[in-house]
């Protein structure tokens, strides 16, 4: 909560007079730039726009931006795309002229009307770039002064901003910002990284898309390079100049320059220090549809009505692109061997929706399974077998899903409903049912608190320390009714609170880990994935040990075991094996196989326990002896059973002891007594075997019918007479 409160609000007001002044200057310079381009023709050149004062040649000759202008343009000597006037060197502009904006769309094959979406490909840095030098772009003096005044540690070296890649992966995600007369202002998030994802560069570009030509151009913006204002002159020629200039002006009018805040100013100064400026040219391939068809496809996928559209929705296919950085002097070209394609954002949305629907179904099935499990195991006997750690891991996974969906639903507009319902169902699953179940499991197993697992293995609970208290001479209240040695019965609420909070904290920490892992290099991310997935999918392991402890071979229903494992494997397999998954998880069959085998192995272990007995993997010798309810009754034991032994004569001859069972109150409970001195031992032994299953003696020496006590122990593991806790059978 504190973190959220202390976050900056985003529209910070300037604090000091100086800040206000600098901000005003910055706003004014943007306004001036707007005014400049509103009066410009193509022939007039860039005008006095920050970042565009020096042409490539000027910079090579070492001119200074303050001395602008260097060239006079008029209709006789117009601005042409040449390194003498332009910021692009001839090598770059010639390359651009080859592929960019040369082909108009035809009636049968039009270019995409709307290129919001995301595309991925590979790039390589042009070898010629050694010849290209960067233009020395300088931050205006007032901003330089301002920056050195606010920078806390000015001696700190500015981070190395240059791009040291030779080849790698490029991805662009485009969205529409403003639309006017067919042409669109687009925003591009450009990401360049090498194959190992060690070096990672993100750029925020603004540009123009011309559907008539299927070409887009975008530039970065910072305090030393007002890229957007030079866009119309970067078009290579004047045939689209008026459209684009108009578009930029319209867009500029729709956003108020006075809305520029101090934060924007800071970020654009930082950008100019830390990032290379880039200019990007993108040329798309033609689709196989006509303009009208594209229009109706566009309409249908953005707001579905049930209109029949072709199965193949056109993709974003980049035929060629180039990224040139004027200040870093680097030229990045498309890797021609690899295709550069991507999906439109509506299609991505739809795919995401389908995946989420699938997860929704899985979570609902999980909820259904949990409810059935809870209905099935409602007796203390069955609850005491279930491992709370298994349940904790399961509910931790569900909590993770719930929290992730809740978080994403706040930022995703299109998928809000489905994410919210997914979060709700996952939360009901973990927060209501699994928690409740875990609380009942824990409160059933409360008598195991403070005992070692060795004791549990033996099956008996250790005598609680209160018991021995009677030996110590106590002066006060010696005759108090023997209150049963209290099982520390905590109220359920304290359990649920602690479980819930631990679960929640774990989930929140993991969410932070998951989000930060997206930025890690691929090797670390892989390791994180393996460890994380193996950890959260080892939920049957605690149950395996629990079974061993309790010596029971059947705890969960098989329906729940297999169902839950399947439900947890399916998404992992989907994201690892289907390459076109919308989360863009890499194709990784190894991970899928490892996790599936791991889960199947766990299930197989449980199956072995089911078939061979819970302790099949431990040698009998290492096991402690379990409490035997069918002890042979000897004379001395009878004495402990608090039977009147006064009549010694009758007692001596006793071979059978008859009493009544405290549960059914029938007095047909006949216990054969083994007399050590008896000669007819063999006879008695037969009798014993015959009788053995008929009675049970608790550790607290109470006698019951076999069936009576067993049926009682399904409900409570307490002696019905003295309420001492009983070891389970």
């Amino acid at each position, binding site marked *: 909560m504190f973190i959220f409160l202390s976050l900056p609000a985003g529209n910070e007001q300037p604090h000091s007079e100086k800040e206000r002044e600098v901000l005003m200057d910055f706003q004014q310079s943007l306004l001036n730039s707007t005014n400049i381009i509103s009066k410009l023709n193509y022939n007039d050149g860039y005008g006095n726009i920050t970042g565009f004062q020096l042409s490539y040649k000027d910079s090579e000759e070492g001119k200074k931006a303050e001395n602008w202008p260097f060239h006079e343009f008029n209709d006789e000597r117009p601005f042409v795309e040449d390194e003498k006037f332009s910021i692009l060197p001839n090598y770059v502009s010639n390359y651009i002229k080859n592929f960019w904006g040369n082909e108009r769309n035809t009636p049968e094959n039009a270019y995409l009307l709307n290129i919001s979406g995301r595309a991925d490909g590979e790039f390589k840095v042009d070898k010629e770039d050694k010849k290209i030098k960067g233009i020395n772009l300088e931050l205006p003096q007032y901003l330089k002064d301002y920056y050195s005044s606010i920078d806390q540690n000015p001696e700190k070296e500015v981070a190395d901003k240059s791009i040291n890649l030779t080849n790698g992966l490029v991805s662009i995600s485009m969205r529409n910002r403003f639309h006017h007369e067919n042409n669109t202002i687009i925003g591009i998030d450009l990401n360049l990284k090498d194959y190992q994802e060690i070096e990672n560069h993100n750029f925020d570009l603004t540009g123009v898309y011309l559907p008539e030509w299927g070409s887009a151009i975008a530039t970065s913006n910072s305090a030393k390079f007002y890229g957007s204002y030079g866009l119309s002159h970067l078009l290579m020629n004047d045939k689209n100049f008026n459209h684009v200039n108009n578009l930029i002006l319209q867009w500029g009018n729709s956003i108020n320059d006075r809305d520029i805040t101090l934060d924007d100013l800071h970020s654009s100064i930082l950008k100019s220090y830390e990032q290379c400026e880039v200019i990007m040219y993108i040329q798309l391939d033609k689709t196989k549809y006509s303009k009208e068809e594209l229009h109706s496809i566009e309409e249908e996928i953005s707001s*579905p*009505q*049930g*209109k*029949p559209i072709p199965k193949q929705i056109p993709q974003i296919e980049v035929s060629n692109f180039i990224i040139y950085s004027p200040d870093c002097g680097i030229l990045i070209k498309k890797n021609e061997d690899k295709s550069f394609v991507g999906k439109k954002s509506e299609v991505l949305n739809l795919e995401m*929706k389908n995946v989420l*629907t699938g997860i*929704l179904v899985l979570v609902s099935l999980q909820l259904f399974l949990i409810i059935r499990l809870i209905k099935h195991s409602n007796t203390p006997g069955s609850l005491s077998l279930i491992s709370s750690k298994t349940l904790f891991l399961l509910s931790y996974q569900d909590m993770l899903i719930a929290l992730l969906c809740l978080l994403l639903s706040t930022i995703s507009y299109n998928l809000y*409903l*489905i994410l919210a*319902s997914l979060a709700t169902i996952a939360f009901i699953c973990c927060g209501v049912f699994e928690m409740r179940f875990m609380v009942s499991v824990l409160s059933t197993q409360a008598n195991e608190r403070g005992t070692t697992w060795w004791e549990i293995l033996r099956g008996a609970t250790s005598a609680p320390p209160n018991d021995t208290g009677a030996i110590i001479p106590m002066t006060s209240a010696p005759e108090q009714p023997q209150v049963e040695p209290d099982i520390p019965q905590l109220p359920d609420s304290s359990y649920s609170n602690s479980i819930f909070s631990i679960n929640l904290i774990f989930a929140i920490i993991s969410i932070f880990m998951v989000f930060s892992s997206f930025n890690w290099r691929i090797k670390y991310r892989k390791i994180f994935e393996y460890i994380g997935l193996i950890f959260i999918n080892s939920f049957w392991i605690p149950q395996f040990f629990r079974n061993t402890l309790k010596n029971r071979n059947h705890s969960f229903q098989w329906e729940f075991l297999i169902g839950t494992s399947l439900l947890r494997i399916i998404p992992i397999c989907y994201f690892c094996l289907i390459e076109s998954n919308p989360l863009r998880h890499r194709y990784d069959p190894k991970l899928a196989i490892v996790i599936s085998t791991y889960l199947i192995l766990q299930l197989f272990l449980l199956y072995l326990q089911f078939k061979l007995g819970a302790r099949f993997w431990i040698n009998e010798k290492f096991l402690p002896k379990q409490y035997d309810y069918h002890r042979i009754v000897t004379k001395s034991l009878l004495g402990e059973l608090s039977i009147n032994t006064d009549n010694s004569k009758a007692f001596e001859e006793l071979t059978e002891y008859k009493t009544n069972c405290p549960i059914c109150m029938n007095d047909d409970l006949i216990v054969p007594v083994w007399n050590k001195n008896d000669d007819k031992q063999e006879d008695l032994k037969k009798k014993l075997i015959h009788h053995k299953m008929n009675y049970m003696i608790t550790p607290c020496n109470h006698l019951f019918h076999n069936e009576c006590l067993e049926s009682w122990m399904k409900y409570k593991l307490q002696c019905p007479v003295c309420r001492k806790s009983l070891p389970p059978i």
Partner: protein
Amino acid sequence: MVQSTPIRGFANTPVTKSICIISTITPLLLSILSIKYLVQLIIDPFIIEYHQFWRVITYQFAVINESDYLLIILLWFQFKVLERFYGSRKYLSIVTLFAIYNSITSLIIMSVGQLLVYYLSFVIKVWLFKYDPTTVHYQTTILNEIIPGPIGILSSLYICFGQNIPISYYFQILLKKPTNDESSKVLNLTNRFPIHIMYTLLLLNNGFKSIIPSLIGLFIGKLYCYDLLPGVSWLLSSTIYHLFINPIKKFTNWYVFIRQKFSNQTLPESRASEEPEDDLDESRQEENRIRAETPVRPLGSQFLDTFRT
């Protein structure tokens, strides 16, 4: 809790229960997955241009707004008396029958009606007002779209309800303090008045989009009550009926059945438990048939019977 209907909860009305559950889950799913457009019936362009005739089936499955949802759930809940009256399986059969008749009739009336309206307007415009024939274009009319939801079915059931379920009690609300000289003004009401109010609301809830299917539904209900509707005695197959009222039990039965078949054992016992229910239903239906045969023969059926022989 106040009991608003003569039957407590969903006691012995499994079909109504299933219908209410389905009518709740389906709109939720449609809304969550944002596929509401799947249940819209619009003649132009969906039927005429795209030939999406499956919409004729889907449009009665779900409502797509909250007030409609509330009204249809309340009406289904009230009409569970009809399920007791007919018997569950017969009731489901009647509902299915109404659904089929309503969708077919609606489709015909909407598409043909729209054409007729267009021709009429064309004739009037060209002959009476001397329009230039080339300027008159095909336009969609109020018959083009109806609201999704089981409005037609409920209208038909509303007629059946009025026909078959007797009034339990009357009551009066005094509107004015009675005086000696003149009879006081009273409002005579029966226990059915909430149904009338809810139905009227449903009828008017979406303007013409709900009035058209309601009128069609009322008409079909009337036909049914006069025995003029073919296929009245049709019964839904028992498998579908059981699948509808308790799919989990049905699947479990199948599962048990298949398992026993594989393990080569004798007939499953679970089948036996289903039998009496069927018998009950069939005997009830037989009773109904006898009852229907003997006493009341409305004018329409008498008239028609002379031609039937």
